[in-house]
């Protein structure tokens, strides 16, 4: 069937195509499943998993020692009760948001270009949330009593305290993880069937078979399947917004100057998407090359993601401005001093860096050249990742070191154990990603087929 392009809007005619021409259903299936079933893993993959594993080791060792000795090993103190643990938690959760956004919200907005990247982004979401999930456990003073925060049957006839934002977090994050997992798995079922049918080895075939649940591509099944998939997407959209809103409540609900502000929910969500897209790109740019996915993940995708980053980056910048403005406008000495101290106090360096990373650097994304060239874009995403970590650092630390009573002011600096936990979590992330690309299709095959079908029909290009 000829690719007639009459009904393509001229604007799209010029941009890169969603997929390189010359593919058909079979070639698509092969291209992706062969990575798992046939081809050997590229060298960089071995490097990545090695790094991941060693960092993971650091995480294990440092956590064990932490559990044994106590939180004193960290830099936290009075008045700074929260440090790296919370910073990392918020950072990881934020990163997670891109996945759900791409798979759910773009699905609802019917954005074709999500097809090639949503599987990967969703996987990232899951792993990011896992990384975030380890921090509450490390963070509490008595991890062996952490079950107190779940509404479990107990002989004390006690309940958790439902007014606490931390408890909201527990529910929000665990729900977020579960739903993302279901969503992701639902998307996987048909591809697992493909792998089942294409793999020769008995064991692999077995395992893929088990998880494919006996999917056979029946029209009736597809019919309900699409309905369920749409519903899950519909639910994930508000969920993803709620999660970072609730995370921001940890701060917004408190009384601490610089935390107690209503701007946080929207500006946290924007920041989350911002950092999420940055991380997707950071991972995607090398991966598409290593695994020869350039046919399906084209500059078009990078261009679009970069645009989303630019948009959310601007929202975040707007958030910073609002913070400063309202600090002044509130007329409250506490707020004004907080802002002043942020900009000129002992942690000014962090504030300046974060402005450079999050407010200035994204401006480069106005240039198409930056958006469509892997290297500059890759570097820029790294910068943004750092910037977003600093943002949380600034929020947590500057406010706590200087709040109401000058006599109770303090200082904070992470110790080696703080850093160990942080890089350790990155190790976990890399390790999980490596396993993912090794054993599961990194691009949704059946949706690519749909896309191919539409391309063949000239509905899109």
């Amino acid at each position: 069937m000829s690719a007639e392009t009459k009904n393509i809007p001229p604007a799209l005619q010029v941009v890169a195509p969603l997929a390189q021409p010359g593919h058909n259903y079979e070639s698509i299936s092969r291209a992706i499943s062969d990575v798992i079933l046939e081809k050997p893993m590229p060298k960089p993959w071995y490097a990545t998993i090695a790094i991941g594993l060693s960092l993971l080791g650091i995480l294990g060792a440092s956590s064990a020692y932490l559990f044994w000795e106590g939180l004193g090993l960290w830099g936290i103190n009075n008045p700074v009760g929260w440090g790296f643990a919370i910073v990392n938690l918020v950072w990881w959760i934020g990163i997670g948001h891109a996945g759900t956004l791409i798979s759910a919200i773009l699905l609802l907005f019917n954005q074709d270009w999500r097809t090639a990247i949503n599987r990967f982004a969703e996987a990232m979401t899951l792993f990011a949330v896992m990384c975030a999930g380890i921090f509450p456990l490390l963070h509490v003073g008595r991890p062996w009593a952490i079950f107190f925060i779940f509404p479990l049957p107990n002989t004390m006839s006690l309940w958790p305290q439902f007014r606490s934002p931390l408890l909201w977090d527990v529910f929000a994050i665990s729900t977020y993880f579960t739903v993302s997992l279901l969503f992701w798995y639902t998307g996987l079922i048909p591809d697992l069937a493909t792998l089942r049918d294409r793999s020769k080895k008995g064991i692999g075939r077995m395992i893929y078979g088990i998880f494919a649940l006996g999917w056979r591509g029946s029209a009736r099944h597809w019919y309900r399947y699409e309905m369920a998939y749409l519903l899950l997407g519909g639910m994930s959209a508000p969920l993803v917004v709620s999660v970072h809103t609730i995370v921001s409540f940890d701060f917004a609900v408190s009384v601490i100057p610089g935390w107690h502000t209503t701007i946080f929910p929207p500006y946290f969500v924007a920041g989350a998407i911002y950092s999420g897209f940055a991380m997707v790109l950071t991972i995607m740019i090398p991966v598409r090359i290593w695994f020869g996915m350039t046919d399906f993940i084209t500059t078009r995708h990078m261009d679009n993601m970069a645009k989303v980053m630019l948009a959310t980056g601007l929202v975040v910048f707007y958030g910073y401005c609002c913070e400063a403005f309202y600090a002044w406008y509130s007329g409250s000495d506490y707020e004004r001093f907080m802002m002043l101290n942020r900009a000129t106090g002992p942690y000014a360096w962090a504030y300046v860096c974060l402005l450079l990373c999050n407010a200035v650097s994204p401006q480069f994304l106005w240039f198409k050249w930056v958006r469509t060239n892997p290297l500059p874009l890759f570097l820029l995403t790294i910068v943004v990742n750092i910037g977003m970590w600093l943002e949380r650092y600034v929020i947590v630390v500057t406010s706590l070191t200087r709040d109401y009573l000058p006599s109770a002011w303090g200082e904070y600096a992470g110790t080696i154990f703080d850093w160990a936990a942080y890089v350790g979590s990155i190790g976990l992330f890399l390790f999980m990603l490596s396993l993912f690309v090794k054993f599961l299709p990194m691009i949704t095959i059946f949706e690519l087929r749909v896309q191919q079908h539409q391309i063949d029909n000239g509905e899109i290009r």
Partner: protein
Amino acid sequence: MSPNDLDNILTDREAPASMSEHQDVNYWRHANEFNGAVTIDDEKHREFDADDPENLDHAGRRNFMKVMGASMMLAGLTSCARQPEEKIVPYVKPPEHSVPGRFQYYASAVSLSGYAMGVVATSYEGRPTKIEGLKEHPASLGSTDATAQASILDLYSPDRQESISHAGNLATWNQLVADIARAVGEIDTVDGAGLTVLTETTTSPTVQGLMAQLQQQFPEMKWREHDPMGNNNARMGALQAFGRITATKIDFLKAKIILSLDANFLNEGPAHVRYARDFAVTRSAEANADAPDYVAREHFAHDEMSRLYVAECSPTLTGAAADHLMGLRYGHVEALARVVASRVGVANVTADPEKVAALDGAWIDALVDDLTHHKGHAVVVAGEAQPPVVHALAHAINGILGAVESGLVTYIDSPEADATDQQGSLRRLVDDLNNEQVKLLVILGGNPVYNAPGSIDMAAALNKVPLRLHLTPEYNETSELCHWVVPESHALEAWGDLRAYDGTHSIIQPLIRPLYSSRTASQILSLVLGEDATTTDYDLVRRRFSGLYGAESEAKWKKALSQGFVEGTTFAPVSVSYRGSIPAETAAVPTEGLELIFRMDPTIGDGRHASNGWLQELPKPLTNLTWDNALHIHPTTAMKYELEQEDVVILKVGEHEVRAPVMLMFGHPQGVATLHLGYGRQVAGYIAKDRGFNAYTLRDESSPWCINEGVTLKKTSSTYLLARTEEHNNIEKSLQTQAQKAEDRHLIRSGTLSHYKEEPDFAQRLGHHAPERENTLYNPDEKDYAGLSWGMTIDLNRCNGCSVCTIACQAENNIPIVGKAEVAKGREMHWIRVDRYYKGDMYNDTVESAHQPVPCMQCENAPCEPVCPVGGTMHSKEGLNDMIYNRCVGTRYCANNCPYKVRRFNFFHYQIREGQDAPQLKMMRNPNVTVRSRGVMEKCTYCVQRINRARIDAKVAAAKIGSDVTAIPDGTLVTACQAACPSQAIDFGNINDASSRVSLRKQNTRDYGLLADIGTRPRTTYLAKLSNPSPALAGADAEAHTAEH
């Protein structure tokens, strides 16, 4: 058992006991009724069996992984381990009058630099657990100072000398007896020539009596005294003024104008607790007599307030309390004394005009004017650090000002056992030693090798003595050089007696048998006397007692034991006459070069408390420094020497030198530097060893308090961490910002008396106002606190910042020390801290500072509560902000969200860390307060254990008589901090009872809530601070004082 039993939040396994009505004399028992006294073995037995939670503490730690594994494995539903089996070990014969599980109270006394401080000691199942003030005792009036509070820790200190040793080997009492007998036998032949007894300042009648016996038996023996601080200048001053040594007693209740010549009378000296109390009374003026909480004062009108002038060369809390403060060099104090003396009309006193020129004329004019216009109500107090002549001048001025007639100043015979010139005494001792005239040296307490002035080589001198005995609570530098080292009994485990600053004869009675093979000074003396070696401390004290009171001694003794002191033994005034001869002024004061001032350390004293962790960790007033001493200098002076905070400098005087870290201190006189004595111990236990530097080595025998010539200061490249309980980066800048913010936020509200009279509610007008209770989404009436409802007020006008509240709280609530490193990280655990804020221009020679004790505010809208995910902290019906340790998982969210930052987190298991893990420390713990484990948040709950005890007792009592009113009489239930506070700044009680003291205080127009503007509705509120500047000087000062406007 629930899983949280498993981790190690555990407490001494006892049931609640009573703290109620401990003022009631009948509650105290005679220790000699207490003959069933438990020995250390029984104690060990009871303490360290499985029944002791602390053992489980360790177990808990050992099984930590198991426990964690367990709880996690079972998803926290259950824990797999069963509560370990515990034993109950009842008495065989129970001691009389003891009810298991209830406290018993004994009236006794502790030594305050040799003088008596009356105390009530609490005993639980035979172990002392707490010390409170003795209401009827003149030196206490129910309060204590920090050292008295902390002396309970000395009893259980792991650094105590436990057994008699000879040349470093364990020895027995009998070997000692034999050896001493031999030595005494030898000197006996020559009337005791060669026998020397060295004591510190003591007032013990028993020791006095025994010494008298000794001198009788051995006419040639020598009694030498050395006390690194003491009050020798006062003695010599009296001698100079009156030709005889007397003690000065000041009745501050009569004092309207006070001039302190470098005297820190609020925090130092044998009477400072009493003086602080009386002074506070003279400060508590009220705008109108019908102020609800106004208490009439004998010599003062309701709106009248004393005025305090302080001239000092090193910042003290007395200076901080001053209405007019003058910082000057050491020598100028004498100049000031002279000029004041001559101007109030003391005959033939001259002042060097050159020096006078260096002083602030207006200041002196106003002062002299005040003094002369308040004859009979004006007093001059001279500081121990000042030379005798200044004391003499003070006596002269007081005479002229009629302070003596009015009874404001009373002269009495010194209560000391042997009031003598200790400076001379030390010199003679050293000469004797060096001339090898001493054959047997008996050192009773003290540590001369460490704390003798550097100009004396005590070690070398000592080594010339053939036989040396040292009676000491802990093994120290002196013990190291002595053949015999005998552990000295603690006041809570031995019989003894002391006199208070006014001569009151106080009895020290034991609550427990000596934990170790310790002896008392009296026992050693009786040994030297060759008495039966089994003579007990009890025998000796009784003997002396009957010696003093003859026939009626039996009755008096019984009464004294239940009262803690012998009634009517206050010394009668002696009439003395001023000899009117003040020698012309001595050498000029060098105004160039660095001047070194030596001061007793504010917390560990002259070093005798260096092994006390509580005092080491108590932030030193004004500097918030812990665990160290330093070279305190003004930032400007520092700039001159290009020094910064924590730089290490080498101070050299003569051939002696020390390496000292620099501590910048606003308000410190320019060109002057203060060194605190008492640090730099080399031979000591874990707590004291190698902390700070030993400033004694720079000290000179002839002028022990100041060196103003030949001081060289060399900056080194190294720095030294000083652990302060406030933020560390750039102290100068941050202190300024802090001062500024404290001002902007109206944290400390203060005004002048005159302004207060015009605008009685000035404090309440300051700052933003708390949101109206109605301004809420919710129904504001849902919370009502019927029945009991607790509240607290802290009167900033009374508080002088002495920090005893912090230690009292630490003792009452089993609060651990965390050590220097942790303090430096900002992890100190004190539940009530004393905030210090500077005011005005920080770079003045003197700077105003205010103090604010901050415990938990028990906010009604507590920000900490809603954020806790597990309900580990919530509100009680009595308005308390409860903290439930065993529910806490340690998210630290509550601490973050506390605007007052009064919550404390156990970052480690501090209770069993080095220096804290000694088993005997467990005997000290308050059985009614949970010992917190690692990972748990903790904080002040208004001593809820005392509240519960009082409530239960009241209810049980009511139930007995079938009444339905369970009244807790106002004032019978006091918090630990309130009980200890010398100036009674803290009031606590039921705010639903309109007549309770605290309610009345809250109705005062000076009452305001800290940060109330953010809507926390604190239950602890503050009363604004007042100052009373002289109208003559009002100009500049008044501005600073009312800077709030």
